[in-house]
């Protein structure tokens, strides 16, 4: 639209320059922004990840010591493994809750009004502060929290227990709570796109409801499932707020380690190497989910 639609009244030279200006502005602004605030900063972390820690700060170098340390020192690779495990648990548990919910909205609920209301109800918590949603679970699960004091009050427990908070269970619970809306949105969209006649055809061919679910509906909604799981996995993978609030000593995640390397430990090269590893994992997951989505599209066509 920016070329060749200018008013015919303008002389050719001026028309060209004004169109060029608009085009350059439209493309140039975001391009410059992406280069200055994204590409160059990532390049800087990448460079730092090869530098050497030397008291009191760090010096330029080109060596793989930081990466070697990440994969040799159990302290670090165990954190990476644990983070991946928790991120996987969070994406699976939010999938298990979100899928039936989205399925119910799309296929069972008859009233469009109620459908919209329930959809809004599950999306609305996204607008409520992230920090608060993690904080709420700290106040519910804690030693002096709502559940403990309630159980003591009704006489089920003699005294408060520590089993609810500061472990991996509380982390998975809290993060699942946070990421359910992210999971419902893409699954809902994917389910809505499934042509109804495919489901009827499956029924007409004598396939039972469960068969239809697992052979027709689930495969066709895979793009939504993968999009939701990508969100939940990647965002959990890089979270340091929930681990800080509800995760105990065995709930430290990669982002917490990066935070401490950039803070108290003042080992920016090691922190940068960890950030690069995180970046590569996230990019890998996005690529994977893109491929699956593309494959799914071809299947349908």
């Amino acid at each position: 639209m920016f070329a060749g639609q200018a008013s015919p009244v303008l002389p050719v030279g001026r028309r060209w320059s004004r169109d060029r200006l608009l085009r350059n502005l439209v493309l140039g602004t975001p391009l410059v922004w992406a280069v200055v605030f994204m590409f160059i900063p990532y390049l800087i972390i990448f460079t730092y990840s090869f530098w050497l820690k030397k008291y009191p700060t760090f010096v330029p170098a080109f060596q793989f010591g930081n990466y070697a340390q990440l994969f040799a020192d159990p302290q670090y690779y165990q954190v990476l493994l644990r983070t991946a495990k928790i991120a996987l648990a969070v994406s699976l548990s939010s999938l298990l809750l979100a899928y039936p919910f989205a399925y119910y909205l799309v296929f069972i609920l008859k009233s469009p009004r109620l459908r919209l209301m329930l959809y809004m109800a599950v999306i609305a918590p996204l607008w409520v502060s992230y920090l608060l949603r993690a904080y709420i679970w700290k106040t519910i699960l804690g030693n002096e929290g709502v559940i403990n004091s309630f159980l003591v009050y009704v006489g089920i427990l003699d005294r408060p227990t520590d089993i609810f908070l500061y472990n991996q269970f509380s982390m998975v619970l809290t993060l699942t709570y946070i990421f359910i809306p992210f999971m419902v949105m893409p699954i809902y969209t994917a389910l809505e796109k499934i042509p109804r006649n495919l489901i009827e055809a499956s029924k007409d061919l004598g396939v039972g409801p469960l068969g239809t679910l697992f052979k027709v509906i689930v495969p066709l909604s895979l793009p939504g499932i993968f999009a939701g799981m990508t969100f939940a996995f990647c965002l959990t993978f890089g979270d340091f707020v929930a681990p800080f609030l509800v995760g105990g000593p065995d709930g430290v995640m990669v982002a917490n380690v990066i935070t401490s390397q950039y803070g108290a430990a003042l080992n920016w090269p090691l922190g940068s190497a960890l950030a690069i590893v995180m970046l590569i994992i996230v990019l890998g997951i996005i690529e994977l989910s893109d491929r699956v989505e593309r494959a799914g599209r071809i299947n349908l066509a």
Partner: protein
Amino acid sequence: MSFARTSALDRIGTGTFTLVILCVLSFLYVPIVILVVFSFNDSSSLTWPLGGFTWGWYEKLFSNRDLLRAIGNSFYVATFATILTLLVGVPAAFALDRLDFVGKRVFRRLVLLPLVLPGIITGISMLNLFKLMGIGLSLETVVLGHATALISIVVTQVYARLQRLNRRLEEAAADLGAKPWETMFLVVLPNIKSALIGSALLSFTLSFDEIPVTFFLTGRDNTLPMYIWSTMRRGITPEINAVGTLIVLASLLLIVVSVILLRDEQER
């Protein structure tokens, strides 16, 4: 399969589903109710049984200078971050929708990356940039950080809207003698208003709530979430519940406003 058996099965199926829906909804909302209830509870601990009713935590909150300053800072950051995301994100969406250029795929990836990229990476990478350039940390560096992280939100929403936009409108405008920039401001932008408003409201909310980027890019000034975060490190108090309740109320208000604005758009 007999009719009676099908309907019995259906009823069991529907019953199970209703149960699942109720579970998910209560999982989402019971904690929020608990948050609100304890903000009115006349006790400094968040334990059962509830004490009496009090406005005390709210009174305490409104006389808390640091908190009020943090709220002011958050409004400042969210406002300017939203303006920047629109100024950069809308052209980016246009470029992706209308222009062909070398490196478009890389550009798309880079611009959309922060949607799933953990905030901590945006935070430390920009911290490195500012340190290297000798720029001191302040609320302005936070604004730049938030804008970078949130441009992706504007791009996805505006891009989706542009794809559905009827190109004939622009051709008609051009045929009637409108210059490209007139078409842009008088035809295209008014037609994608709902996406602009929606993404601006979402950017504002997310910026207001942002922690990971702010954590690394702020100087001495606190935003509201950073203030709450530092209060939490000292321990749990019902005052946080009171702030939280107000945030929930404000969020509800924003949702209602955006629904109304977007509905107006559709009816026209």
